[in-house]
């Protein structure tokens, strides 16, 4: 039965977006979550956080989406965000071959250091600019198949395949997983007690 089960409780999954700077990670998220697109999207300096619920047939999936900074100098911070992630979308720009090479490196890193059962999707973004294409669909598709990951060419601008890629991930996620504690996003290391270098934060903090 493909009916929505009203008694299904949303199951939360952490999803992270990785990829070179300016390939359209934030644009994909904003298209998916808010249905918006901005031609000049500000560069993400940090890691943006948004949530989006996807009702599937018998389950309700709630994505906790971490949209990371693409600039190379923040590379070492990426593990903070893919650690504990159930899914990752690795994004490249079809008009930029280097971004595809970078995407492959991210896939490798995720497969080596991410969660064991992480669901990875490769997104060849900016499919609306196919006249400037530098990455062949067949090449990316073959790479994805070899590595057992999902692959779609997307366009945050035209919305093509944006919902589809999230839904495809949702379908591959284990539905029996317990609800992630919302606090997982606050699962951070607080400076050690007695660290004299760290100023005592305001009254009552920590």
């Amino acid at each position, binding site marked *: 039965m493909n009916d929505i089960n*009203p008694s299904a409780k949303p199951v939360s999954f952490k999803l992270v977006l990785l990829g070179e700077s300016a390939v359209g990670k934030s644009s994909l998220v904003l298209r998916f*979550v808010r249905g918006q697109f901005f031609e000049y999207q500000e560069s993400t300096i940090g890691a943006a956080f948004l949530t989006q*619920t996807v*009702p599937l047939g018998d389950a309700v999936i709630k994505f906790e989406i971490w949209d990371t900074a693409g600039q190379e100098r923040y590379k070492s*911070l990426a593990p903070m965000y893919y650690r504990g992630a159930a899914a990752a979308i690795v994004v490249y720009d079809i008009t930029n071959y280097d971004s595809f090479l970078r995407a492959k490196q991210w896939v490798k890193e995720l497969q080596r250091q991410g969660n064991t059962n992480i669901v990875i999707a490769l997104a060849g973004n900016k499919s609306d600019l196919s006249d400037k294409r530098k990455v062949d669909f067949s090449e990316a598709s073959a790479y994805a198949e070899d590595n057992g990951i999902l692959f779609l060419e997307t366009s945050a601008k035209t919305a093509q395949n944006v919902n589809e890629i999230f839904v495809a991930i949702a379908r591959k996620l284990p539905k029996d997983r317990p609800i992630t504690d*919302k606090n997982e*996003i606050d699962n951070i290391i607080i400076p050690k007690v007695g660290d004299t*270098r760290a100023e005592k934060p305001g*009254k009552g903090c920590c």
Partner: protein
Amino acid sequence: MKRIKQQVETYLNTTEECKLLAELILQKETKAKVLLCLVANRRSPHEMALILFEKAKEEYDTAIRIMSFRLLKKDDFGLKIVSELQFDLFFKENTALFSFESTSVSTMWSVINALTNAVKVVNTHVAPNQEDTDFDFDTYTWAEFYTKYTEPDQNLEKETSKAEQRMMISDNDKKQDQTSDFRTSVAIKEDWIAKQLQNKEDQFTEKRPLTFVIGTWNVNSKIPNHLVSSWLRINEDEAADVYAVGLQEIDMTAGALLTQETKISDQWTKIITDTVNSCTSHKYVCLLSKQLVGIYLIVFIKEEHLEHVQDLKSHIEGVGIMGMLGNKGAITCQFKLYSSTVCLVTSHLAAHTGGTSKRNQNFADLSQRCHIDDDESIDFIFWFGDLNYRLTLSDADTRQAICDNQISHLLAHDQLVIEKKNNRVFVGYEEGTITFMPSYKFDAGTNIYDTSEKKRTPSYTDRILWKDVHKVGGIQQLYYSMHNTFMISDHKPIVSCFKVPIKIIVQDKYKQLYRELIKMLDKLENDMLPEIQLSTQMLQFDTVEYNSPKVCEMTLENTGQVVCEFIFVPKPGEDYPHKPWIKIEPIGGIIMPHESMVIKVTLKVDSHMAHQLMDQPDLDDILILHLKQGRDHFITVTGKYQVSVYGIALDQQVPECLWRLVDWLYRYGIKEADLFQEAGITEQVHQIRRQLDHHLPFDDNVSVHSVAEAFVGFLESLYDPLIPHRYYRMSIETSSNAGACVHLITKLPKAHFDTFHYVMAFLREVLKHSNENHSSIDTLAIIFSRVILRPPLNYPQLQANSNDLRAKALFVKHFMTQSHHWTREELVQE
């Protein structure tokens, strides 16, 4: 309403100390206007309170007053969604429960988000209230202004009874349940979705009238030898969706009383199964067949509906002998059909004309024990059976009325009609118009009322009633009749047919509504995430000199709608949120909406870090500013350390800069009053350091005290002190023994030994001029032992106490009093 808001704002601004975080205006039919405000202390935002303002009811009275004031304590209050525009706020220790109603979904959600956010902040930052002691108002001085107006708890209770339209007393046990599930806003949201779906059911359901045929018969232990299709009117044209048959007295043997189920029920099951499945082209599936001594219930459903049946439940309760045996009692069959829940009940109640109150009691007991009353999910109840209510007319009058076909006259004396009219039984149930003669009591095999000696008065013992629990309307009774053709029993069978408006979910509409709700909640949730605007994400310090702190400031502005708690967090694999030469003030905090906070980032390279930065002088770091329950911002710090001779490690000989400093002091400063006791001029000290670094002459007008400070500072900056770290402990331990101290010095590496010797020689020169420079051996020993003998970083802090200070000074003093000159070689030879 605007006026109230303004007044409240004036009220709040009077104190200047607290800030309004969320507000909700209630307007009830009573015209009473109440404003709920969540406020926080500006200076320590984790101190929050709820204030209820009320406008006077009289129109001419424009004053507002504080109705109640309540500081938020840890784990103190919870929220529960009542409907799409209503929620309850309740407090743990207090029985007060506030019901709020909002005018729009988004207002309600912004308040709920502010409140759940407040719960999080309060729960992390406010200590739990001790059970016995009262809340400590002293620490919440800002709240005094309000507490003047209200005694928090008393007032709450007083107001509770006063303003009933918005506050109710909730029963204690119910409240406990709620407290346990309020913690996550996730639960609140699910609750809200469920309530929304419930409220908007009409938008995605349609009512489909399904046909229920219900029969009841007291069979007096007899079994027919044929099908019973004429009783249940089973034929192709009238094929029902559900058939429910209740029988009584199928087995009245003593054995049945003990076992409850006997073989006779199998025979009945076969007869009825054959009946429903042989008279139409439809296939019927048995949902349930159960026996309780003489009572028997069997339910069939048309096969096409079977996959829409859920939550099938059945209760069997006896109220017979001893109030529990099954000679009297009931069997229920409850199930959800599509989206409506139907409960079918057959019962045999207490007998005899005088048993009315017993029958009423049986009904009440069975309703309760079969959970018919307390199950809110039930939409429709059908109750049928030998209810045993009698006619109170005399036997003769009854028989006469039967002959005259005066049914209404009979019913006027029917116990059930009378009891029901007086609300003593079957309250809320309906019964169709009876157009048939009494179904009891006949001579077996005939249609003649009882001619035996007992001569029972004919009565309407066998009845079918229904209840539309949620009063949705639409139940239609098509017929209600008795069948004379069945003559084996002393009762005649009764049958009734209903059109029941069963709710069916239209999946497309349901999905659409569900998606819309989820989308709206996602949007609200994302809009309510903490948000901060940073004045800059790039802190550029350019060059940073030794021991000269440089400060950059950035402003965090809370541009979101909720209280934002931030903290700088360590990078993966690191223990601290920043490099050792960075200081962040404050490293965490809470910012209220539309307020800002300045973060001071200081870069300072001191003696601990100078040496390691000599080869790699880049002062680069990335700070991670984490918003609790929200995003992270990266802040890039860049700077370059201006490498200096300060912080060097001694390797071969006495460093050149030390020669320069000592030489200068010897020439121009040895007679300066208060030498080494007066502070230098900071800028001059830095200038001297630069001149040493670049081998430039000192300024002509430089102060002696500045050079003296630069000299002490240089000794302090040495990567390994003059007496190296590894000799620190030994120096302290041997300080009282001059010989041992001298011996220890002989073990120092050459550069350290030479420099130490050089510095001591100079200090002895200084002391020779103590008349002019006011120096004393004790003060010089204290000043120089501090920089010459520095404890290693891992040295236990507790031991670096005043004893250590004294020992260090003593150690140095040995070398300041000795007037003879040593060389290292001489000492070694000794």
